[in-house]
């Protein structure tokens, strides 16, 4: 009995060993296949939130890259090489973004479009920098990403938060003429960074005062206490730095309490999901967002292509991502290779026609020629405020 048991054990061990052998064979075949391929294709990584609660920010950039690459490959690719997409999800979480970056680098990516959220991008940037890979984000607006000078490999096709904050403050003071402002944020890299700038600009101007400056806990069951506090602070307007889930909860609770306080927010809120979730309470909310380029013929074509391919209107940052893909691939074309120095030089010197207009990049990596303007929810849609 005992003997047969040990025999079984040995045969089991053998089977497992064989299994490992097969797997390892399979893997080595795969890697050799990949290295063979890299000689032929240019690998464009696309990283960002493609699932999870912030997927609505990330999925449009994947589609933008797919459309651009499809067009370019149809014309024969770049430098005679086809472009291949490597799509990786980071769910907008910094701890996952580092894995995403490592995976892309290991897979031999040449250039990266992404990431989507500032916090996640900051976490991943060091990995790309060490591997000398250029990354371009369609949506990260955290000022330090370019202004700190720590990341020469980082570019973006969206203006940074300080431009948004100063637009929000100027709009509140000069257009709406409010004097008492509450500044709220969601304690995140993006929201808090923006709120800090807004507070700084408000304090610098003597026309308005900050009556309340607080961070709310994202995902909390409700925000009634913060809403009460805002009411008793006497604020005429709220400037909120953060994303739409918190914004829609706060605005709904304010309006249910009968508060008419003006609500001004950022491009994290300038998303149709906000209007869908907040419903009637979204009416009248101001939010800054990228300048409307819907009259640009390239933008019209890009949106049309999106509708034809995916059967729906493109989501947030689609045009920024489309432009970023064009800029990246154009720079490789102009540089004649995927060499780091040559491509970053090309990005800084060459002007590219994109759906956002004719853009190039300054020394710090910020796009020249893109900016923000103010929108307001009117009858369930965001309308530009002139």
């Amino acid at each position, binding site marked *: 009995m005992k003997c047969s048991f040990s025999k079984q054990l040995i045969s089991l061990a053998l089977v497992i060993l064989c299994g490992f052998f097969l797997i390892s064979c399979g893997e080595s075949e795969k890697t050799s296949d990949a290295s063979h391929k890299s000689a032929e294709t240019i690998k464009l990584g696309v990283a960002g939130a493609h699932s999870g609660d912030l997927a609505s920010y990330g999925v449009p950039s994947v589609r933008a890259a797919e459309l651009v690459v499809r067009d370019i490959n149809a014309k024969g690719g770049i430098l005679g090489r086809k472009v291949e997409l490597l799509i990786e999800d980071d769910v907008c979480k910094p701890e996952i973004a580092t894995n995403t970056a490592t995976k892309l680098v290991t897979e031999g990516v040449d250039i990266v479009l992404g990431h989507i959220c500032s916090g996640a991008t900051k976490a991943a940037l060091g990995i790309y920098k060490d591997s000398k890979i250029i990354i371009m984000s369609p949506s990260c607006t955290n000022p330090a990403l370019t202004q700190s000078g720590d990341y020469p490999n980082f570019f973006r096709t969206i203006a940074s938060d300080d431009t948004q904050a100063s637009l929000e403050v100027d709009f509140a003071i000069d257009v709406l003429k409010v004097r008492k402002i509450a500044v709220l944020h969601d304690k995140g890299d993006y929201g808090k960074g923006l709120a800090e700038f807004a507070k700084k600009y408000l304090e610098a101007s003597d026309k308005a005062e900050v009556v309340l400056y607080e961070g709310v806990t994202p995902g909390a069951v409700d925000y009634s*206490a913060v809403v009460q506090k805002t009411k008793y602070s006497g604020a005429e307007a709220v400037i909120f730095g953060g994303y739409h889930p918190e914004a829609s909860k706060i605005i709904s609770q304010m309006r249910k309490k009968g508060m008419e306080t003006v609500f001004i927010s950022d491009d994290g809120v300038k998303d149709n999901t906000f209007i869908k979730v907040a419903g009637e309470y979204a009416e009248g909310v101001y939010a800054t967002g990228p300048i409307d380029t819907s009259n640009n013929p390239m933008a019209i074509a890009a949106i049309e292509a999106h509708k034809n391919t995916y059967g729906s209107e493109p989501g947030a940052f689609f045009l920024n991502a489309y432009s970023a893909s064009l800029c990246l691939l154009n720079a490789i074309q102009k540089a004649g290779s995927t060499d780091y120095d040559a491509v970053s030089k090309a990005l800084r010197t060459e002007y590219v026609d994109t759906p956002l207009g004719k853009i190039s990049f300054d020394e710090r990596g910020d796009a020249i020629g893109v900016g923000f303007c103010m929108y307001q929810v009117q009858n369930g849609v965001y309308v530009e405020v002139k």
Partner: protein
Amino acid sequence: MEYFLELILGGLTRGSIYALIALGYTMVYGIIELINFAHGEIYMIGAFTALIFTSVLTLLGFNEIAVIVLASLAAVIYSSAYGYTVEKIAYKPLRHASRLSPLIGAIGMSIFLQNYVLLAQTSDFLPFPNLIPEFEFIKPYRHIISSAEIVILITTSTAMILLTFLIKFTRTGKAMRATAQDRNMAMLVGVNVNRVISITFVIGSALAALGGVLIASHVGQINFYIGFVAGIKAFTAAVLGGIGSIPGAVLGALVLGLTESFATGYVSSDYEDVFAFGLLVLILIFKPAGILGRVRHQKI
């Protein structure tokens, strides 16, 4: 003064929701000494079920009251079924394993249910219709208290009174108390322990579903992840009040809700969680079993 009153009401509303969920944690712990981490997800499933039924019933042209009642009922039944099934699938086979195994099973169930809803429904935030109508008589006071808050407070108190009645004065309640005191002894005197455990899960899930429907209707939005934060807070409340004790869970939840509300109101919402968990640490230092918890002596 008005501000103080508003903060109290806000804190009580939040505390009531925590209480509805915390009861599930504490009842299950009292009976099988398991921290059911999947409980927050049951709350989330309750809210989703109510959303689906509300949309369907509204389309079919039912009136407002019928929609609220039927959707809440559906949520309660559906969540109870989930609670029952989770117990049967994940915890019952592990009843005699070491205490760590069902705990890990519970965490696994929580992850599974979250991702199941993510895949079966959506990852987006969904608008939740305002099921609770605005009462006319409350209009002049709506800056202090909303109709939703009144409904939450009344529903929660009613649910608690019914639960107390059930536990104190019915045969099932007696069987539950007996099982909580000593499972083997209860079995010896003829209590069907498996049935009692199932009933506990069903009641806990029903209460959580009720909480889910109420809060979703109050804040007007849900997604697959809402159960996580609510579950953690309710678990904190249960520990604060003394896990295993039913009045303790309610007291702990109300204390937690009020602490958060006052911390935000008088200090800063940046420190909301600092105060909530700081209080927990303090109470556990001075009363390790929680406010109303009794120290259990090891039975020989």
